C-alpha cells in the first residue's frame, strides 16, 4: 500500500523490516490523514521523496524523523547533569552581577542616576552635543514613564559589555599572537555570528532555568563578544611592523611591547569593537526578553503578544533612543583616542 513497499521487497529486506506490529508513533502526516479521512490518503504525492517518514511506512525498522529530534533531545537531557555541574558554578557570578546591577540601577534614585549617566557620557565623549543629547533622551524616557525599564536594559548592557571586553580582549590578544589559535577560533566566531539569535536560546533554556538571569546573560555575551575579539586581534596584527621591529631592536620584553606599543596602537580598533559589542548587546537584550530578560524588550514583546500597538511602538522608540545614545557616546570616545594617536 505504501509507495516504497516494492523497494524493500526487491532488496530482500522484509525480514529486517520485520512484521512487528507497527506500534511506532504516528507521524504528523498520518495524523492529518486520519483527521481528513480517506480522501487525504488519496491526495498524497504519487512519487514521494524517500524521506525517513515515507520509508517508515513500508519498513518499521527505519526510524521516523521525530525519532531523530527526540534522540537529540534525549542526548541533551542525558548530558545536562554533567554540563550543568560544570557550567553552573562557572556562570553563577554572572547571575549575581546581573541581579546586582539591576538592583543597583533600581535603588539609586533618578536624581542621582541621571546626573551620573550624563557625567559618564561627558567623561567618555568630551563632547557637549553628545552629552546634552544623552541628558535629553534619558529625561524624555523618564517623562513617558519608561525610566525603570530603560535602566534595566541599560544595566544588562553594562554588565554584558563589561564581561565581553574583559574576556574578549585577552582572547583577541592570544589570537593575535598565534596563527594556529586564530585559525581555530575564527570558525567559532563565524558560527556565533551567523547562528540566528533565537537558536542560541534553545540549548541555554535546556541547561539553565528561565528564572536565572545568567540564561539571558550568556546568550547576550556569546553574541556580543565576537566583535571585540575580532577587532582586538585585527588591531594588534595591523600595528606597523617597523614599529614592532624597533621595539624588538631596543630589547622590549613581550609584556612591554604589548602594553607600551601594541595595545595603545590597536586601541582605535578595539574601541570600534567595543562600540559594536554594545550595539549587539542591545539587539540581543531585546530578543532575550523572550527568556525573561527584563527591560524595554518586555514591552515590545507585550506589544506583539497582546497586539498593544502603542506599548510596543513606544518601547521600540525607547530602544532606538538608547541605541543612539550608546552609539554616539562610544563613537565620540573612539574618535578621541584616534585623535591622541595622530597627535592632532
Amino acid at each position, binding site marked *: 500500500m505504501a509507495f516504497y513497499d516494492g523497494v524493500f521487497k526487491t532488496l530482500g529486506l522484509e525480514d529486517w523490516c520485520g512484521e512487528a506490529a507497527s506500534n511506532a508513533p504516528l507521524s504528523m502526516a498520518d495524523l492529518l490523514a486520519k483527521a481528513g479521512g480517506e480522501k487525504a490518503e488519496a491526495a498524497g504525492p504519487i512519487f514521494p521523496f524517500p524521506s525517513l517518514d515515507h520509508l517508515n511506512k513500508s519498513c518499521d525498522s527505519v526510524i521516523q524523523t521525530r525519532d531523530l529530534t527526540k534522540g537529540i533531545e534525549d542526548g541533551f537531557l542525558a548530558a545536562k547533569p554533567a554540563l550543568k555541574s560544570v557550567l553552573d558554578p562557572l556562570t553563577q557570578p554572572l547571575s549575581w552581577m546581573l541581579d546586582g546591577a539591576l538592583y543597583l540601577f533600581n535603588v539609586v534614585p533618578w536624581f542621582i542616576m541621571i546626573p551620573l549617566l550624563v557625567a559618564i557620557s561627558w567623561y567618555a565623549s568630551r563632547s557637549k552635543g553628545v552629552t546634552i543629547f544623552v541628558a535629553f533622551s534619558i529625561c524624555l524616557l523618564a517623562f513617558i514613564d519608561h525610566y525603570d525599564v530603560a535602566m534595566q536594559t541599560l544595566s544588562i548592557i553594562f554588565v554584558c559589555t563589561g564581561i565581553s571586553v574583559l574576556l574578549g580582549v585577552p582572547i583577541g590578544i592570544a589570537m593575535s599572537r598565534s596563527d594556529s589559535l586564530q585559525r581555530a577560533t575564527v570558525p567559532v566566531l563565524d558560527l556565533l555570528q551567523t547562528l540566528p539569535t533565537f537558536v542560541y536560546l534553545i540549548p541555554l533554556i535546556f541547561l539553565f532555568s528561565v528564572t536565572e538571569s545568567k540564561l539571558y546573560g550568556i546568550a547576550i555575551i556569546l553574541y556580543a563578544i565576537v566583535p571585540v575579539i575580532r577587532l582586538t586581534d585585527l588591531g594588534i596584527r595591523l600595528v*606597523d611592523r*617597523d*614599529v614592532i*621591529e*624597533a621595539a*624588538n*631592536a*631596543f*630589547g*622590549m*620584553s613581550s609584556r*612591554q611591547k604589548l602594553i*607600551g*606599543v601594541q595595545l*595603545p*596602537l590597536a586601541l582605535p580598533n578595539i574601541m570600534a569593537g567595543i562600540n559594536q559589542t554594545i550595539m549587539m548587546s542591545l539587539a540581543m537584550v531585546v530578543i532575550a526578553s523572550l527568556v525573561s530578560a527584563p527591560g524595554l524588550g518586555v514591552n515590545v514583546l507585550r506589544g506583539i503578544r497582546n497586539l498593544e500597538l502603542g506599548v510596543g511602538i513606544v518601547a521600540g522608540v525607547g530602544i532606538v533612543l538608547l541605541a543612539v545614545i550608546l552609539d554616539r557616546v562610544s563613537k565620540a570616545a573612539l574618535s578621541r583616542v584616534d585623535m*591622541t*594617536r*595622530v*597627535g*592632532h
Partner: protein
Amino acid sequence: MTAQPKVRLRNLYKIFGPIDKTVLEHVKAGMSKDDLLAQHNHVLGLQDINVDMQAGEITVVMGLSGSGKSTLIRHLNRLIEPTAGEILVDGEDVMALSKDGLRGIRQNKMSMVFQKFALLPHRTVQQNTAMPLLVRGEDPAACEAEAVKWLERVGLAGYENHYPAQLSGGMQQRVGIARALTANTDIMLMDEAFSALDPLIRTDMQDLLLELQKELHKTIIFITHDLDEALKLADHLVILKDGAVVQQGEPQGILLNPNDPYIEDFVSDINRARVLRVKSVMGPLDDTTQYAGDVDVGDSLEKLISISGGETGQAYRVLDGETPVGQLDMRDLVKALVPRVSSSKAED
C-alpha cells in the same frame, strides 16, 4: 690594527625558507640565488659573509636594493636568525645567548636607526627618545634628562612635546638618532637611515653624524645604496652583491682598484676629484723633486687642482700635520681621476 674587532661575522649564511638548513648544502656547493629560488623555492639572503667591524669606526655596507644589506644588519642583533655562521660582539657569541641575554645586549650594546624612522606614533618626541632607557627600567626623571640632552644635541630643542607626525622626515630621523644615542650603546646600527630624506637634508644629516662620531667614537654600522654617502662616511667599506661580499676594505682603495665589474659600474660615475684624497694617490718622497708647495694628506684632489691652477707639470709635498709623508705628482693625480675601466679599455 686593533686587538679585537668589535663585531665579527664569520661564515654567515642566511636562506629564507622553511628548510633552510637542508638547502644550505646546495648553496655551499655553489648554487646561485636564481637557481635556488627556481629549484628549491628558497631565497638566498646572505652567503659566506666574513666581516670584521672595528671599534670606533664607521663600517658602511653598500649594495643595490635586494643585495641583502638589511638582512645583514639585522643579524647583528638577531632580529633575523642566521641559517649558519657565527656572530661575535666583543668576542661574545651572540648565537649562544638566551632570550634574556639577547634582550640584554639589544638594550645595552646596540641601538638601531631605521629607514622609516619607526618612532612610536602615540608617544611624544621626548618619550620616544627616552624609550631605550625606560625599557631598561631606569629612573624616569633621569631618562627624561638624558632625552632632553640628546634632543638638544641633534638640534631638536623645543620639540620635546610634539608628536612624531607633527615633524618633517628629517626631524623625525633626528629623533631616531637621538633615541639611539640616548641608549648610550657602543654600537649603532643604521639601516638606510638617510635614504628616505631629501638630498639637502641628507647632507645635513651626514654632517651631523660625522660631527657626533668625532666626539663619541661609536662603532657604527651604516647601510646605504648610495656610493657618495658610503664614501663620505666609511672608514671601512663592504660591498654586497646577491648576498655575498664582492669587495671590502678602505674606501679609497676600492675606488682606485675595484676588483669586480659590478663595483666598476658603481664607481664609474662618481666625482673622483671630490672623493679621492691626496693620501690615496701620493707617492714616496724623493729629494730630487722641486716642490711647488705643501698640501695635507686629507685634502681632496679637487682642492689640489684648484691650488695648482690646472698646471700638470708640478709636484707637491704632502704633510701629515707637520711631518712630510710623501709627494704628489700632478700627472698621477690626473691619471687617478680616470676610472680604471676606461683606462684599461684605452690600453687594449
